[in-house]
């Protein structure tokens, strides 16, 4: 009897988390990012440069773009993370900025989905990860960041 009640409560909590997480994702994905502010047109790669890799950091407001140039050793272009991608005139820079900003947005929304799924038991972590997952931190973070409650 007690086990049955506990199970029922767990299902109710999981359903509530799923519903609220869905609401959050819908809301977040429909909003316009507020961080894209500055002009990007001055950020250009050298003529003929090809992309090697990039590293984006929203907290540091940087997108480091590593490139190669014909006959040269390549280099690095650092673009502010918060540039308005539409103002980038270099197509490779624009593609990278769009990709970095979209990934950042997707990852932040995805964190709520992922953590909610783990807490609700819908996603099972592999054993090598389970021991590192801080459930207490996750529950508090989820309540504050995804449900908007403390």
């Amino acid at each position, binding site marked *: 009897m007690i086990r049955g009640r506990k199970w029922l409560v767990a299902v109710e909590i999981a359903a509530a988390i799923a519903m609220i997480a869905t609401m959050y994702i819908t809301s977040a994905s429909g909003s316009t990012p507020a961080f894209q502010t500055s002009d990007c047109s001055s950020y250009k790669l050298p003529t*003929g440069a*090809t*992309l*090697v*890799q*990039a*590293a*984006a*950091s*929203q*907290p*540091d407001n940087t997108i*480091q773009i*590593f490139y*190669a140039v*014909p*006959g040269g050793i*390549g280099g*690095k272009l650092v673009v502010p993370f918060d540039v308005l991608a539409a103002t980038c005139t270099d*197509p*490779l820079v624009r*593609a*990278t900025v*769009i*990709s*970095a900003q979209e*990934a*950042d947005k*997707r*990852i*932040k*929304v*995805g*964190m709520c*989905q*992922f*953590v909610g*799924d783990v807490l609700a038991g819908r*996603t099972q*972590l*592999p*054993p*090598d*990860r389970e*021991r*590192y*997952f*801080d459930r207490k*931190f*996750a529950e508090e*973070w989820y309540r504050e*960041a995804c449900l908007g409650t403390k």
Partner: protein
Amino acid sequence: MERVLGYANHVAVPWPDYNFYWMSNRVYHVAADRPQVNVVSNICDYTLQEDSAIANTRAQTAGTSELGDMKSLGYALYRYTCNSNPDSVPTDIFLSYEANYPYGSSGGFTLHQKATADWCGLWSTYYPCGDHYPTIHLNLPKIQGESSDQIVRLLMHELGHATGLDEHCTSDAIMNNGDVDPKTGLPCNNKKWLETGQWYSTDRDGLYAAYHPLYGESTESWSAARAVSSGPVLGFYNLTNPAVDVGPGGRMFIGFRNDKVYNEQWEMAWSDDGVTWQRETHGAFIETLNPGAGMLAHNGGVSIYAVFSYGGYFGYPSNTFWIYRQTWNGGWQGPVLEYSAGTSTFHCCEGSPRVAHSRDHSQYAIAWSRTVSGVPLAEFSFIDGTTGSFTGGVEAIDAFVVQALVFDDTGNPKVIYRVSGAGTSGIGGRRTRVNGVWQPEEQFVIDGMTDPDAFSLVEGEGGYHWSASNSTHGDYHALQGGNLTFTYMKRLNGAYFQSAVDFGALPNPITGTYTLHGLAQRVYGRQAYSVGVVWTNDVAGDLWFIKRRVEGY
């Protein structure tokens, strides 16, 4: 303030700003259950090529000398799943095969995405902690026309970028790129793309460098906080080194002996942030006569292990030898007798019990020595990490006095003792327990203090005021007390460094006159710090919690 870290060539984006927490020194490298790096794909069309790229990368990095302390598993990639949303599973690398590829004519483009502090916290570590996950964007129309070998080569190259490596064209490398220079008509390194389709030494050097900042170019900082002060009901016992340890959840404990209560009982203070400390007013072992006790932080809290001797004082003849445990798990539990011996006449105790845990807190142990008919006998037991009780039976090791107990690089318990000499001169010995068997004695020279175990050996002897950390991966450090300017020794990647640290000149300085200090201990994961405790005598006696943090780990 921007941190300046130095790395070897071949590294574009080093840890800890990018790359993988699971590959870093915050995670115990030699643990068999160390997490792998999960590769997730958006489609399942190239699983064979992904499997080959992953298997090749693992085989060509694991067990290689260039990887140093990372070599046990190497670049431990694992194909986790395909046809999946990377945010629904524990993704470390996302392979995104894209029909509309906007990144030029290349086959692939890796984009790192630095994790937030929240993401780090979810995985029990601190910011920065590498990538949330890098995405390897793959040019689907291009690779659809290429051979399987070409795709494997491309994946291996991009997986190199995903762990921070840069392009490399001056010698054979998996990081040779596949582009042909339009001016010269030659590809990178003048080699055909497939000819260099493997990890070379230079790639492995780069992999190691991506996770190891060069000494002198990393930043390290010391901090201190007053933890406990003496007063009407508290006075620090003048013979006993204070103890310090950190539990698997990050709670910090300082153990000390109160001279203001009957028979100088052991007490404890604890903190979760290293700044605000709470003293437990009800101490352990009301009747203890042994100034030496071991303190061990474990899953259930903290335990103090002390030797009692019936009818006698520490070091005096007695007919019984008892080790009692008292555990704090939010409050002190009653004393528990863990071990007794003594059907024959023997001297009581040689030194005090030494306790230790492995770096990942998967193992706990205790070792001590007692004398039987005038001959010392070293004994050992594992400890249950939940209860603090002895487990697995007591093992006799040999005839010596245990001075230190540590878990070595591979997680094996090791006892350290003196063979000859005195002070910082002479010969030390160590015995390591491997697969349940105590291995033969290894001897080492104490003079010069170049063997990490030498510091552990002299620590318990007094007068030298050395405190040593556990030596893991050949990297250790030690503090020698002296007023408030300490001599600080460390060995990092096989090289020795010595410097001075003035605790009286910290932003929150230690005040008073130095008296003693306790074991400095390395802690990883949530607290990637070294911690210790310093006792000063000013108007009142104070215990100071000290912490050293190195950026880049």
